[in-house]
């Protein structure tokens, strides 16, 4: 009983931290621009493919698995940043003063474009993500399994979230990001180059998606061009659950969703795995639409 419970916590944390990393991208872009960047899930997918090819090219040259993993993670993050910034620059920035709905529709368009583009370039068949580090158990006995990949996933995610927290709380850029997300017009009046801050936000969000995609590939080594759809939806649910726009909310929302899935699969049925996320979405929208950490902004008149 207890072992099963602990095992579900381990599995849920590993899965949830990937959701959390992706959810952070949604929530941060929403924070500064008030729209859901639907293309974010496809940036995640491109990150996985970027890592896939990078691992293929680099593996003959790098024999140390840890260095190879780091190179692939950083390479994939950089690739995702390039994609994210390109999207913001050519698709979203021209619509800066347009109604939010136009941007939202554009984001869906970009997402569809990337998914279909991916199918042309990479083919629709799933590819096997290379196992960058060989799996071995760190902890075994009493029916409890914790392997090195699960540990890597959780440690890397937590580390990235701590770095993010530090940036947002303590650096001038991070504080400016919060200022822009509160009131972009007043931020302009402070001399803050708001377009630069928005690019910075996309940089952080996309790089987290890149890291998440490699962590995902390590745990579920099967990638395909529509990979981002389900992860993206789940991460979006996590962001809404935590309170869209709230960084803390996205992190907590992702972990909670991962745990909820893991427990549902074990105690109820694995067929409910995907249903639980959307069940949570419906419940949160019904009873606490602002999310766990979200607040509705009241307009003062």
């Amino acid at each position, binding site marked *: 009983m207890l072992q099963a419970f602990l095992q579900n916590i381990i599995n849920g944390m590993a899965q949830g931290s990937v959701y959390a990393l992706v959810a952070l991208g949604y929530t941060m872009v929403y924070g500064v621009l008030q729209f859901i960047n639907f293309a974010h899930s496809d940036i995640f997918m491109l990150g996985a493919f970027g890592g896939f090819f990078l691992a293929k090219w680099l593996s003959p040259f790098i024999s140390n698995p840890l260095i190879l993993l780091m190179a692939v993670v950083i390479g994939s993050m950089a690739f995702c940043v390039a994609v994210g910034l390109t999207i913001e620059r050519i698709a979203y920035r021209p619509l800066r003063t347009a109604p939010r709905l136009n941007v939202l529709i554009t984001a869906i368009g970009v997402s569809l474009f990337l998914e279909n583009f991916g199918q042309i370039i990479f083919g629709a068949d799933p590819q096997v993500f290379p196992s960058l580090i060989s799996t071995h158990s760190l902890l075994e006995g009493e029916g409890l399994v914790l392997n090195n990949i699960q540990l890597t996933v959780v440690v890397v995610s937590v580390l990235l979230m701590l770095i993010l927290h530090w940036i947002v709380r303590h650096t*001038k850029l991070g504080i400016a990001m*919060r200022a822009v997300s509160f009131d972009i*017009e007043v*931020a302009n009046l*402070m*001399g803050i180059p708001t377009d630069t801050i928005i690019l910075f936000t996309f940089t952080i969000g996309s790089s987290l998606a890149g890291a998440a995609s490699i962590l995902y590939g390590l745990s579920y080594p099967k990638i395909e061009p529509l990979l981002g759809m389900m992860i993206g939806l789940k991460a979006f649910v996590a962001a809404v659950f935590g309170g869209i726009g709230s960084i803390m909310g996205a992190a907590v929302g992702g972990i909670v969703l991962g745990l909820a899935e893991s427990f549902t699969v074990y105690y109820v049925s694995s067929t409910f795995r995907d249903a639980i996320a959307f069940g949570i979405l419906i419940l949160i929208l019904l009873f606490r639409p602002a999310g766990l950490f979200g607040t509705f902004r009241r307009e003062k008149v």
Partner: protein
Amino acid sequence: MILSIKNLSVNYGLIPAIRNLSMDVAPGEIVALIGANGAGKTTILRAISGLIKPAAGNVIFDGQDIAHVKPHLIVRSGMSHVPERRGIFANLTVYENLLMGAYTRKLLTGDLEEVYSLFPRLAERKKQVAGTLSGGEQQMLAISRALLSRPKLILLDEPSLGLAPQITKSIFETIQRINKSGTTVLLVEQNAQAALKVSHRGYVLEVGEITHSDSSQALLTNDAVRKAYLGEH
């Protein structure tokens, strides 16, 4: 002139809000722009600081036409705008708000000491989230924050809005002190009486056009102005 507005027109969609308006601000002055609600006072300030693009006309600041310059670059050239309703970042602390005010520079300890000596209340509350401040404290924060970019000209939009008379009085005294230390002030107010008392010159705005322009002293005694804006019948 530090600021010279020439034949400015601003439209909202197809509706003209400001028509062919000209006004000047000389270095060292406090100039008041008064008028009823909806006359276009805020629109003028927004056009000056680059938040909206004028349909026609020039805004010459410190010798340069800034009518089509982006707002964050205008700040760098030495202008600061305290927007209507103060525009405090309610999610940031008082200190973080001040840090953002100095975004274009490096925030020095001396700067903070200066702000805290102007408004000691802010020193007590520097770690507090700005959204929890009272209206008067928020106005103090908004003004301090705007001063931290070291502006030559500061635009103030309705600093008395929603404040008790006693606090309004102290805010206006502070505006005079800021002016005496060398900052030029363009003040937009519905509280015409208070604004004309602290300013050197004034402009009266009516539905997008300037109807009176004179020394504040003269405007205070002008019959038409008294009837329309100073509550006399």
